[in-house]
């Protein structure tokens, strides 16, 4: 199906009100900014992803899975001398060297229990308690900005909690809808006209499909856009798994579009490493490598737009400081987050390191949290997306006054 037809269908579905207003999220200098949120479900082991190689207690806790120091064979990749990066995170290492990555360590959401599902709920709802709010902080932040036809897109069939709420968002995954007869689609649109939920969803989906189709038509016309950007990341083919490849390709497509959404969200699972977690190689190493490759691909596909992009990776909580009895780690507390992209004032590890001694551990077992995740989220939303401070304190993160924004994460 051609682009024009797609747009017609979308216009039909949206009652003709499709064309978005030219209200891009923009920085003070007028350039549009892009934000990608990646949720790592299952509780990423922060001490494995960013090992504190310089901490005197690290080795004893992680035993045979302690990573060797940077510089040693099979060792961690160098960061700031105290922390290292897991050897699977090669693109992250390059980003750090290019001052495009901030690693935030010993951070946690306000949640202090150890249920994945409640932990993810708090991570996404933006309050201090599970199920306290039925919408997500990212959606409420978008709602505080000038309205757009589609403010954000979730890559996947459904919209995760963090993106649910009053602002118009959509979800997208590859579809063969183009095979559908225009007349049938028109009739379904009519059939949904009395159903608020289904008519809104259908209009959103058709608008997203139209945008994706327009984007791929643009790509065909100007292959230069798709060419990899310069730099080491482009030097060798990347082992991106198929799901990631589809997601980051689509995310980049949406974000590059001038009229498209400026915020994209996707999630990944498989981080719940209770047994046989591995170290430089093994289960977690494989997952980190795939994630790292996906980020490298996202950078390539965004092309020049990367310089106005910030990508934030977060997880619901960390894992036990010590290995458990089955060469894995159980549910814990503080962990890492990663903020990377051309817009990020990077090349830093931000951590008020609590240490790993028995006395320093939270409840004698977990890395203690010294940084509230909401301090990071507030700063990114304020500095990168220009969400007003009042909205951040009131609607986006209610009752969070103690979590002051961690200023200076984004290049000014």
């Amino acid at each position, binding site marked *: 199906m051609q682009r024009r037809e797609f747009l017609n269908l979308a216009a039909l579905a949206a009652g003709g009100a499709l064309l978005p207003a030219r209200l891009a999220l923009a920085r003070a200098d007028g350039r549009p900014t892009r934000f990608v949120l990646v949720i790592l479900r299952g509780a990423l082991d922060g001490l494995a992803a960013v090992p504190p190689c310089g901490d005197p207690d690290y080795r004893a806790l992680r035993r045979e899975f302690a990573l060797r120091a940077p510089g040693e064979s099979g060792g961690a990749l160098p960061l700031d001398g105290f922390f290292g990066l897991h050897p699977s995170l090669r693109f992250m290492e390059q980003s750090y060297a290019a001052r495009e990555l901030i690693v935030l360590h010993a951070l946690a959401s306000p949640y202090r229990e150890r*249920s994945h599902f409640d932990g993810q709920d708090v991570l996404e709802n933006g309050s201090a308690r599970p199920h306290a709010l039925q919408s997500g902080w990212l959606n409420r932040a978008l709602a505080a900005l000038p309205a757009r036809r589609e403010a954000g897109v979730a890559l996947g069939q459904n919209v995760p909690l963090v993106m649910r709420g009053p602002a118009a968002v959509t979800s997208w995954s590859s579809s063969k809808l183009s095979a559908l007869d225009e007349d049938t689609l028109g009739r379904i649109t009519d059939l949904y006209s009395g159903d608020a939920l289904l008519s809104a969803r259908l209009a959103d*989906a058709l608008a997203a499909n139209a945008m994706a189709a327009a984007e791929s038509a643009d790509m065909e016309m100007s292959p230069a856009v798709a060419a990899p950007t310069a730099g080491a990341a482009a030097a060798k083919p990347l082992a991106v798994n198929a799901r990631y490849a589809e997601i980051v390709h689509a995310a980049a497509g949406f974000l590059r579009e001038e009229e498209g959404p400026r915020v994209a969200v996707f999630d990944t699972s498989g981080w719940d490493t209770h047994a046989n977690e591995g170290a430089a190689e093994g289960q977690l190493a494989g997952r980190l490598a795939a994630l790292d490759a996906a980020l490298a691909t996202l950078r390539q596909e965004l092309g020049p737009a990367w310089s106005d992009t910030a990508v934030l990776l977060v997880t619901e909580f960390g894992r036990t400081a010590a290995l458990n009895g*089955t060469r894995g780690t159980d549910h814990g507390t503080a962990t890492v987050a990663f903020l990377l992209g051309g817009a990020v004032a990077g090349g830093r590890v931000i951590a008020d390191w609590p240490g790993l001694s028995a006395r320093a551990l939270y409840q004698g077992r977990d890395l203690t949290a010294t940084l509230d995740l909401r301090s990071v989220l507030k700063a990114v939303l304020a500095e990168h997306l220009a969400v007003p401070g009042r909205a951040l304190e009131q609607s986006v993160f209610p009752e969070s006054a103690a979590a002051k924004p961690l200023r200076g994460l984004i290049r000014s």
Partner: protein
Amino acid sequence: MQEPFASAIAANRFGLGARPGELAAIGSDARSWLRAQLLGAPPTLSSAELRSAAQILADALGLRRQIQAARRADAAVTAAAPGAEAAANEVQKKLPQFLRPIYVAEVTARLQQAVSTERPFLERLTQFWSNHFAVSIDKQFLAGLAGSFEREAIRPHVLGNFSELLLAAETHPAMLLYLDNHLSVGPHSPEALRREQHQAQRKIGINENLAREILELHTLGVGGGYTQTDVTTFAEVITGWSIGGEGGRFAAADPGRFIFRAELHEPGTKVVLSRRYRDDGFGQGAAVLRDLARERATAHFIATKLARHFIADDPPRAAVERLAEAFAHSGGDLPTVYRALIDAREVWVQPLAKYKTPADYIVSSYRGLGLPVEAGRAPLAPFELLGQRTWQPGSPAGWPDRSADWDGASALIKRIEWADAVGARLGSRCDATGLAPELLGANLSEPTRLAVARAASGAQAVTLLLAAPEFMRR
């Protein structure tokens, strides 16, 4: 009670979607139709293709040993001649080649049962409990075990007592493997002490995964009043709950079957949720499970989930309380709870209270249109396309059960896409106009009736029927 809607609610929300003639058969007494399904033993699924978990696991463990042996052989060869081809790669393919057809057969049998059963309420309850005690095929071996887990641990107990269901689920090899309990070792167990004497490098100990999820997801629920200490102690209590035939010194006992391994069990009296349990081996953990099943928090947690599934995303508190009361008073007798659900006034108020999950949507389409369950991999395809692969919720919490989890824009498009393909396949062989009132009953709206009747083709009529707002919900 809104009588016109009762038969549609019974067939579509309690059942798995009306088959032609079903609403007429239900007639004016929807409650009796549902109650009757609770009588008599639950059906078992059996065919030559469906083997026991123990048989499957014994074979799988055998294959794993072959793979490990081939790896060791490879390592020796590579050491002698670097660059030599790895023979293990070939052997390694055998495991998925073994597990995959089992998964296909199990999914097919489950779908066939759902499509053809005359007791669809009972089948929905089976699926509910299977999802409550969720395992997920993204872990090794589980693709081969998820089906037999449901047949062996869930089906026989859906009309029994909750405590029997709980014990069957937690001691099934699929659950032990999925939540790592076969690896968990008491730090003062005979095996741990033996290792210490030999100053083994690798420490062994507790894995708290299963203990935590039993408390959080299977019994008390997350706010149910347990502490981290309860989790850790309970994990110690169930050390030794393991599987036969793991290889090496642990090969004792029938391969693939549950076994209590005293040598891995953490000795001693333990306190869980303020109750003391003396150490009598396996009985210690079984006693904790029995008490957990009787906790008020468990009754409330199960009642909430049932009410959410059968009444509304946010069920009325009074209804939840009555279900919890039925659970507690009957000592966890499940048919008593189901009857309380049928008797709940709140059930019958809102005709289309729930948005269908993809699996609901697919199964109700099969039932409504009489689609054949084909041989081969075809039955897997719609679940994959619509985003709900059977037995792959991806987490021990199982699939979520609220509209917002399933009503995404892209998810809707997938349903329409599939409805279009089904329409194209059936074409005018299917009388969608005649079927619409048979499937939707009093819920059939005038716009849908007209849209289906005025469709440009038989194929389009089927597509519109499946895409209709009242078919998206139950």
